[in-house]
């Protein structure tokens, strides 16, 4: 790979993500703050309106982040899927990729640059919003251990990468809409399959369910977690290689 060429393209692609970045940052920040506030104040708020409610989760930093991460398991995956469904498809559809790929840049460099920029543009707002939530907690409630939080984020970020790359591999072969819908279908199928014990380990979704454990019992990464982590990395790498290969050989 020609690093200066890659970096020039990457900088350009990353700058194109700025608007998405801002919108997602605001969205994720709203979600994390809403989770924290609702965990700590929900009971009081409902009592104010004379509603009888007992919060099933005792108010704590871990509960607040658990709530926020659980939301991301649905909204985050949907956002990543929607955000990456046109990473290649729209350019291929309208032909503007002809301008990009007739500059002296290899298809692999171009594909990796586009994909990385898009994924960073989607994942970085999530990480920043989580950090904002952590600071907010420290200011008003309790400072949650940052190392535990980081360990809990890893599977979610890897899951985002996996979903993003799956959508991209489809986006390099078909239309945006088909890519988005097909990814959601794949996720549903894989999520359903992961309920079956013998193949649980092979599912990219099982590790994500462990963040509750990590958050509630501080850092304890046993062998089982490690294997699942490796599994998720493999799940992300295979479609990544497929995307690059698919873009290398396809007619544009």
């Amino acid at each position, binding site marked *: 790979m020609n690093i200066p060429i890659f970096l020039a393209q990457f900088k350009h692609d990353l700058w194109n993500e700025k608007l998405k970045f801002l919108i997602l940052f605001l969205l994720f920040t709203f979600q994390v703050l809403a989770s924290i506030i609702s965990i700590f104040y929900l009971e009081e708020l409902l009592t104010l309106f004379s509603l009888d409610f007992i919060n099933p989760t005792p108010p704590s930093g871990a509960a607040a982040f658990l709530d926020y991460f659980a939301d991301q398991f649905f909204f985050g995956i949907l956002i990543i899927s929607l955000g990456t469904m046109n990473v290649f498809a729209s350019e291929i559809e309208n032909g503007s990729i002809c*301008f990009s790929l007739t500059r002296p840049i290899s298809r692999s460099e171009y594909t990796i640059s586009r994909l990385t920029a898009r994924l960073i543009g989607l994942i970085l707002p999530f990480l920043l919003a989580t950090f904002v939530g952590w600071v907010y907690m420290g200011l008003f409630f309790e400072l949650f251990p940052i190392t535990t939080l980081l360990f809990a984020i890893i599977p979610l970020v890897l899951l985002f990468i996996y979903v993003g790359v799956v959508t991209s591999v489809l986006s390099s072969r078909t239309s945006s809409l088909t890519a988005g819908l097909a990814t959601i279908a794949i996720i549903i199928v894989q999520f359903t399959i992961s309920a079956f014990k013998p193949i649980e380990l092979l599912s990219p979704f099982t590790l994500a369910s462990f963040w509750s454990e990590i958050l509630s019992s501080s850092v304890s990464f046993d062998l089982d977690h490690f294997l699942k982590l490796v599994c998720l990395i493999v799940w992300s790498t295979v479609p990544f290689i497929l995307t690059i290969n698919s873009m290398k050989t396809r*007619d544009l």
Partner: protein
Amino acid sequence: MENIIKIRNLSKNYGTVKALDNVTLSVPKGSIFGYLGPNGAGKTTTLKILMGLLQYSNGSVEIFENEVKKNPVAVNRRIGFLPDAEMPRNDSIYRFLNLTGKLHKIKNKEERISEVLVQIGLKKLSNRKIGTLSKGQKQHVGIANALMVDPQLLILDEPNNGLDPIARVRVLTLLKDLVKNGKTVLLSSHIIGEVDKIATDIAIIHRGRIVEQGKRKNLVKRYLNHGKYVIAGKLDIDQVMRSLEYITSCQQDHLERYIISTTGNVTEEQLLIDLIQKANSKIQYFSSAEISLEDLFIETINGQLKEGDYA
């Protein structure tokens, strides 16, 4: 003369459709090469293969003595290309050209951007987003992008699409100047009149096959012993066509005059007039007309068509 592009026995299939069928083509260095053909003939497919955007089934494609398949990036470094495609809407003109400059590692990038924008008349709009420009302005940006590299070879797919007449003349003049400075231009078009004004070499492609190829002057010369005549009067076309075999086509123009094309057998115009008048017709006006590249194109394509076919 040295050939900058050499295509040999090139074939490309889209499923069962043969887009290119055994195409062999050479583009001489320092020429303005007009690549002509009706819509869907295979012009864009050929150009995309040259730029490494399409894979091909058979044959070989060499540019600057490099096989395109083996190292498309090295080839792209020396070519300015204008595709017939949408441009990225969200980039400003400056950002778009700046990226081209960076990837081509152009020294004095800023100066070069400024130069091409002045050349193409878009200097004042450099911060405008491409998506907000008119079709003609976008086409100008595409041409500026192709010129950024100061390329040895310029490949342009329908460069005059969306341009007004003044801009068209400006682009054609620009291309002529580039060739004067030792560059080579390959342009595809279905607007024959414009190519006729500047092309030194021609290839005509039809249904994926090269049907004519050579120096423009030689090709037109070959057709000079053919005749083209403008006739006004009352003609019984069917009888004229039946009785005079060397009349290859007869069409009426907007002034209801007949434009007759003949093969090379007619040496005396008076003889033709007499023969037409014998065929139940009355001529009021008769004159010969100049054979143009357009005639050559129409003649060639018509020769390839079967009755009831459309190009």
